[in-house]
C-alpha cells in the first residue's frame, strides 16, 4: 500500500518542478541541434526525474521512519502519595482545603466535574479525578466527606467502602539530558472545542487540504498585503508539525524547500487524526527556565495547574492564542497582549460556530486565570525530588527517565512536608532573623514502612542546591548515646536501665599517646546515676565510662546491627558522637529504634508505572528483626525519659499531653551542630540545625533543633509508642542503688522495665509489689529445703 502511494507521488512532484525550469534553458541553448537536443532533454529529464524520485523516496522513507518510530520525549513524572481518606483519619478541615487548593480543585456547586468540590459546613462533596495505581487506582467519583474534631468522621463513596483517595499530586518531573517536557494527551481526550478553536485560527482547511493549502496561502497573502507586512504565515498545521518535528528552527532555503513535500508525504501516509494528535502534543507553548513546555497537556498544567480536560473555553482559547508566539503572548509576562489575542480566538470560534453567542459573551469577560508560576508544586520540594532522583538513578538509565513517561509514585506526604518546612523556617527566622547564618534540614519517616514522608534540605525549602538532609555530613554528637546504652542493655546480666554509672571525670588514653578527658555539658559531674539518667540528661562522662566498659568496638557492632553501612573506627571519641552522619543517615539509624527493633530500608518510591498507568516496578517494604524485643523496648523507654524529664522535656509543653514519644538531643563540640532525632508510634523525625561553614552556631540540640521537632510533631497526626512490655520484660521497683529490688513507695525507689535476666535476686526488704513476688518464690523455695 504505502509503496504504491510513494511512486506516483514522486513522479508527480518530479515532473512538476525542477525539470520544467531547467528543461527550458537547455532548450534555448541548443536550438540549432534539435536531434541531439530532444534526446538530450529526454535524457536529462529522466536523470532529473530519477534523482527527484530518489530524493522524494528518501524523504518519504525519512518522514515515515521518523513518524512511526518517533519517541515522545516524556520525562518521568514524580507524584506525592495520594491523599487517603477514611473514617478516623486525622485531617483538619483546613488541611483538607489546603490540599484541594494545591491540587487546583475548583469550588463549584454540586461538584459537577472531576476536579471540583463544594462545601456545606463540615461536609465536603468532592468530585475526585481518577488515577491509575499498582492496585488499579481509583475511578473519578463524587465522594462525601464529613470532617469534625480534626478527623474524618464519615465518608461515602460509590463502591460502598468508606475509603477513597484523591489523585496523587505531581511534585516534579525528571528530564536528564534534555529539557523538553510534555504530558501526552491522546486525541480522544482533547476537548473538541480546543480542536475547533485551533483549526478556526490556524488552519481552516485542515480537513480538506493534502498538507499544503493554496487557499490558505492565498488568504495569508491577501491578509499580509492588506496589513502591509507579515501577519499570517499561511502554512498548514501539517507544515507546522513538519517544521517542529523534523526540521531545525533555522529558516534556510533548503529547509523551506523540503517542508512542503514532507507535509504532503505525511498526509499521504497518516490520517488527519494522527497528524492532529501529533501537532497537539508537539507544539511549543512556552519556557520555564531550562524546561521547554511542549504540548497542550503540559500547557494546561503549566498555565492553569489542571488537566487539559478540565479547562474552560476561555482557558482553551488562551492556549490557542499562545501558538502565535509563546513568548510574545505569554499570559504571565504580557497579560494584555495575551488577553487580546485570547479574545480574538474566542471571536473566531464564535464566527466558525464553535461557540454560541451567549458563551462567547460570557467567556470573553473572564480573566486569564493563569496560576502564578511560583505556586506550582512542581518545584516546591526540590530536596525530596533529589532523593527520588538518586534512588531512581540506581535502577533506570537516564534515557528511560527522560523519554518513557514513567510515573513515579513517591512516598511524599504533602502535608507533612509543608509542616516540616514551616517548623524549620519559623524557628530559624526567630533565632536568626537576618537569614544568612543558620540553616537546617528535616527528615520525616513513617518508621514501620520506611516511607520518607518529608525532606527539607534548606530553610528556604524551594531553593535548589545544597541538600543538607542528604549531603551535610556532621558529627552526630549525643545522638549516638542511645546506641551506647543499647549496647549495654543487650547484655542483661551486666546492665539494666537501673545500673549505676559513675558520672565522674574520666581520662581515656588514646592510641596516639594523647589523653582524652571528656567534660559534661554543664561542666559538672553528678556521681553515680542510673544508666537511664545518663541517657535522659545526656551525661557525657557517664556515657564514656559505660562505653569504655562495654567497649567502643561493641558500640560499632551495634551501629552496624542498626544498619550503618560505613566503616566506623572504634575510637573512644565515637562514644560522644564523633561520627559524621547526614540527617538522612541518622533517620536510617533511628528507624529500627522507632519500630522496636525492625530495620526497614528507607524508601522514597513505592511504585513505577508506565505512561499508560500499567505497573512496571514495585519497591515493596522489606523488614528484618535486628534487635530483640526486650532491649528494643528498654531503649525506647529510656528515650521516652529524655522527653518526659530529660534534656527534651520542653517538648512536653508543645506536644499533646498524653502522647508518648521518645528521642534524643545532640549538640556537637563548640555548638556547631544542633540535633534532635525522635519518634512517636508513627513518625520519626530528625532535625539538624547548624552553619554551612561549620562555625559555632550558638545552638544546642534543645534550643536549636528540638523546638522545630516539637512543632513539627505536634502538627502531624500522631499515635503513641506502645507501653506494653514484650514477653520477658517486667516492671520492677528498684532501690536507689539500682542493685536491689524495692517496692512502690519505698524511699528513693524507682520503677524500671527490666529484662528478667537483669532483675537482681536481692531486695532491700522494703515495699510490696516486687517484694511479694520475690517473697513467694522464696517461700516456695523454703518448702523444698
Amino acid at each position, binding site marked *: 500500500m504505502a509503496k504504491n502511494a510513494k511512486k506516483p507521488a514522486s513522479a508527480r512532484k518530479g515532473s512538476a518542478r525542477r525539470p520544467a525550469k531547467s528543461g527550458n534553458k537547455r532548450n534555448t541553448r541548443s536550438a540549432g541541434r534539435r536531434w541531439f537536443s530532444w534526446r538530450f532533454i529526454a535524457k536529462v529529464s529522466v536523470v532529473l526525474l530519477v534523482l527527484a524520485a530518489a530524493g522524494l523516496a528518501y524523504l518519504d522513507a525519512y518522514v515515515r521512519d521518523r513518524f512511526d518510530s518517533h519517541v515522545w520525549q516524556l520525562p518521568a513524572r514524580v507524584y506525592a502519595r495520594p491523599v487517603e481518606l477514611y473514617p478516623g483519619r486525622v485531617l483538619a478541615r483546613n488541611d483538607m482545603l489546603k490540599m484541594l487548593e494545591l491540587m487546583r480543585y475548583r469550588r463549584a456547586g454540586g461538584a459537577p466535574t472531576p476536579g471540583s468540590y463544594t462545601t456545606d459546613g463540615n461536609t465536603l462533596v468532592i468530585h475526585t479525578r481518577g488515577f491509575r495505581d499498582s*492496585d488499579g487506582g481509583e475511578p473519578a467519583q463524587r465522594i462525601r466527606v464529613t470532617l469534625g474534631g480534626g478527623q474524618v468522621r464519615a465518608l461515602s463513596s460509590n463502591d460502598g467502602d468508606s475509603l477513597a483517595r484523591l489523585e496523587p499530586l505531581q511534585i516534579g518531573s525528571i528530564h536528564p539530558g534534555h529539557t523538553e517536557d510534555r504530558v501526552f494527551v491522546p486525541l480522544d481526550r482533547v476537548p473538541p472545542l480546543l480542536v475547533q478553536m485551533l483549526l478556526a485560527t490556524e488552519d481552516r482547511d485542515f480537513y480538506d487540504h493534502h498538507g499544503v493549502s493554496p487557499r490558505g496561502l492565498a488568504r495569508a497573502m491577501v491578509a499580509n498585503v492588506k496589513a502591509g507586512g507579515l501577519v499570517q504565515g499561511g502554512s498548514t498545521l501539517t507544515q507546522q508539525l513538519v517544521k517542529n518535528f523534523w526540521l531545525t528552527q533555522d529558516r534556510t532555503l533548503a529547509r523551506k524547500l523540503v517542508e512542503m513535500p514532507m507535509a504532503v508525504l505525511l498526509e499521504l501516509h497518516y490520517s488527519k487524526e494522527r497528524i492532529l494528535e501529533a501537532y497537539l502534543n508537539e507544539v511549543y507553548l512556552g519556557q520555564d527556565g531550562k524546561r521547554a513546555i511542549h504540548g497542550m497537556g503540559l500547557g494546561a498544567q503549566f498555565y492553569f495547574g489542571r488537566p487539559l480536560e478540565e479547562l474552560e473555553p476561555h482557558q482553551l482559547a488562551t492556549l490557542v492564542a499562545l501558538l502565535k508566539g509563546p513568548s510574545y503572548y505569554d499570559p504571565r509576562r504580557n497579560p494584555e497582549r495575551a488577553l487580546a489575542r485570547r479574545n480574538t480566538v474566542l471571536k473566531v470560534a464564535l464566527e466558525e460556530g464553535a461557540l454560541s453567542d451567549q458563551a462567547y459573551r460570557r467567556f470573553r469577560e473572564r480573566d486569564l486565570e493563569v496560576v502564578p508560576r511560583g505556586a506550582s508544586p512542581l518545584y516546591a520540594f526540590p530536596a525530596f525530588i533529589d532523593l527520588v532522583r538518586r534512588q531512581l538513578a540506581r535502577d533506570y538509565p537516564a534515557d528511560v527517565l527522560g523519554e518513557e513517561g514513567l510515573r513515579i509514585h513517591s512516598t511524599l506526604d504533602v502535608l507533612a512536608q509543608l509542616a516540616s518546612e514551616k517548623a524549620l523556617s519559623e524557628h530559624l527566622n526567630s533565632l536568626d532573623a537576618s537569614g544568612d547564618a543558620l540553616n537546617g534540614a528535616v527528615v520525616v519517616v513513617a518508621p514501620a514502612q520506611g516511607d520518607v514522608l518529608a525532606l527539607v534540605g534548606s530553610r528556604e525549602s524551594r531553593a535548589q542546591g545544597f541538600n543538607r538532609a542528604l549531603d551535610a555530613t556532621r558529627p552526630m554528637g549525643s545522638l549516638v548515646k542511645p546506641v551506647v546504652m543499647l549496647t549495654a542493655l543487650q547484655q542483661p546480666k551486666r546492665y539494666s536501665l537501673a545500673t549505676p554509672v559513675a558520672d565522674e571525670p574520666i581520662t581515656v588514653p588514646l592510641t596516639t599517646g594523647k589523653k582524652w578527658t571528656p567534660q559534661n555539658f554543664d561542666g559538672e559531674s553528678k556521681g553515680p546515676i542510673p544508666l537511664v539518667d545518663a541517657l535522659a540528661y545526656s551525661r557525657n562522662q557517664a556515657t564514656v565510662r559505660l562505653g569504655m566498659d562495654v567497649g567502643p568496638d561493641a558500640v560499632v557492632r551495634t551501629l552496624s546491627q542498626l544498619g550503618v553501612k560505613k566503616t566506623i573506627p572504634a575510637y573512644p571519641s565515637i562514644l560522644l558522637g564523633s561520627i559524621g552522619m547526614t540527617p538522612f543517615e541518622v533517620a536510617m539509624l533511628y528507624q529500627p529504634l522507632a519500630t522496636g527493633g*525492625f530495620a526497614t530500608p528507607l524508601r522514597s518510591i513505592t511504585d513505577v508505572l508506565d505512561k499508560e498507568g500499567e505497573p512496571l516496578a514495585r519497591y515493596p517494604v522489606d523488614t528484618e528483626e535486628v534487635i530483640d524485643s526486650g532491649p528494643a523496648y528498654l531503649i525506647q523507654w529510656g528515650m521516652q525519659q529524655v522527653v518526659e524529664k530529660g534534656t527534651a522535656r520542653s517538648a512536653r509543653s508543645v506536644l499533646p499531653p498524653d502522647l508518648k514519644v521518645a528521642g534524643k538531643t545532640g549538640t556537637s563540640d563548640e555548638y556547631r551542630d544542633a540535633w534532635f532525632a525522635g519518634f512517636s508510634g508513627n513518625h520519626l523525625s530528625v532535625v539538624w540545625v547548624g552553619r554551612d561553614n561549620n562555625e559555632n552556631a550558638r545552638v544546642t540540640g534543645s534550643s536549636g533543633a528540638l523546638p522545630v521537632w516539637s512543632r513539627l510533631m505536634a502538627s502531624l497526626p500522631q499515635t503513641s509508642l506502645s507501653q506494653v512490655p514484650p514477653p520477658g520484660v517486667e516492671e520492677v521497683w528498684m532501690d536507689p542503688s539500682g542493685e536491689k529490688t524495692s517496692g512502690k513507695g519505698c524511699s528513693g525507689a524507682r520503677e524500671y522495665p527490666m529484662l528478667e535476666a537483669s532483675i537482681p535476686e536481692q531486695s532491700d526488704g522494703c515495699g510490696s509489689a516486687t517484694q511479694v513476688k520475690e517473697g513467694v518464690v522464696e517461700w*516456695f523455695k523454703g518448702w523444698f529445703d
Partner: protein
Amino acid sequence: MVQRLVRLTLLAVLLLSGCAVTPPAENAEPVTADTELQGSPAMALLSRAEQARAQGQTGAASRYLERALTMAPNSSWLYRELALLRLEEGDGHAAEGFAQRALRLAPDNDDYRAELWELVAAARAEQGDRSGADQARSRAQALRKPDRA
C-alpha cells in the same frame, strides 16, 4: 517426710487451681482478621488484597496491604498477610521479617503464635536457612504441645 508430702500435695492443688482460674492460652478465642481488624477501614483493603492475591496479582495485593497498614499499624494480622504474600513471591527475607513483626504484635494465643512460627520456619527454609527453620518449627511445636497432650 510426711510434712514434705503434705506440702507437695498442697503445692499440686495450688497449681491445679491456678490452672482452673486462669484458662491456658491455647484455649483462647481464635485469632482472625475479624478479631484483629473489627471496624477498621483496613478491613476493606484486606479483602481487596485477598481478592487480588487469589487472582495472582501479588503486586496489587501488596499495595493494598501496605495501605491497610497505615490505617492499622499495630495489627498482627496484616503483618501475617504480608509475610504470606512475600513468601508466595519468593522473598523469604521480607517474609521472615514480617512474620517476626506479626509475632511481636500477636495476641496471647498459642495456636496463632505457633502458626506464625511455622511461617518463620517456611521463610527461613526459603532462604536456605535449614537450622533456623528447624528452630522456628520447634518453637511452633512447643506452643502446640498442650494441645496434643
